[in-house]
């Protein structure tokens, strides 16, 4: 037998308590973002590979792209299994700018990789891949930090 919930009217509401409850729920669950440094390294490796792939000759371009995309998919799956939630980098209002900045940098580096492939030097994809990888690993942690602050200030 289901028990009836009491009807809540606006007059019964303590808004301060309600706002505090919202903050607490977000803080207790989403602020405990405990993931290993290995995740950042893996993310950096995958992003670095995506950048470098654009400077590689065939078939390595395709192989690298596929490996990187599969890697990204596995990482998303791991995160969802481990933490039980997911937020894409472009959803939060403030943190999205970190994602946009990283995407802009990555696109620029891909362009440089492609330039190296077309006009030389052939090895240009190596430093662009490294820079892209390091930037991605760092930006991942920066994104989390900005997002957590956004959650704390958000209500």
């Amino acid at each position, binding site marked *: 037998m289901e028990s009836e919930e009491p009807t809540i009217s606006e007059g019964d509401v303590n*808004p*301060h*308590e309600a706002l505090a409850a*919202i903050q607490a*729920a977000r803080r207790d669950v989403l602020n405990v973002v405990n993931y290993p440094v290995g995740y950042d390294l893996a993310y950096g490796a995958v992003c670095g590979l995506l950048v470098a792939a654009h400077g590689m000759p065939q078939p390595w371009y395709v192989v690298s792209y596929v490996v990187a995309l599969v890697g990204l998919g596995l990482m998303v799956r791991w995160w969802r299994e481990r*933490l039980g*939630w997911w937020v894409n980098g472009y959803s939060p209002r403030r943190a999205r700018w970190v994602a946009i900045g990283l995407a802009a940098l990555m696109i620029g580096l891909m362009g440089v990789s492609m330039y190296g492939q077309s006009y030389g030097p052939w090895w240009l994809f190596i430093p662009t891949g490294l820079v892209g990888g390091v930037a991605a690993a760092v930006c991942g942690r920066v994104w989390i930090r900005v997002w957590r602050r956004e959650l704390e200030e*958000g209500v």
Partner: protein
Amino acid sequence: MTPPVFDAVIHAPGRLQICAILSSVDDAAFSMLRDALEVSDSVMSKHLKQLEDVGYIKLTRATENGRQRIWVALTAAGRKAFATHVAELNRLAAMTAPTKKSRS
């Protein structure tokens, strides 16, 4: 601009916290929400049914590693309803002084 609106469905204890969490993410696992609220499966299911019945959430069932997992996400209507509800709470809070209890 949508005016602040109090939403009794969202405001109920339990569902307010569920919506608070879901509003911050794209989706969340049923098990994570249940553990966060420290309630039983049946209580969580009841809360989610209430939210689903008014179109505020959608449930997705996925099979992962041989077991079924339920993922919960706010719909666009749910996000809007939660945002206007929080706006109303902020409006009410601005009109009243905080009590000592709310500081804990």
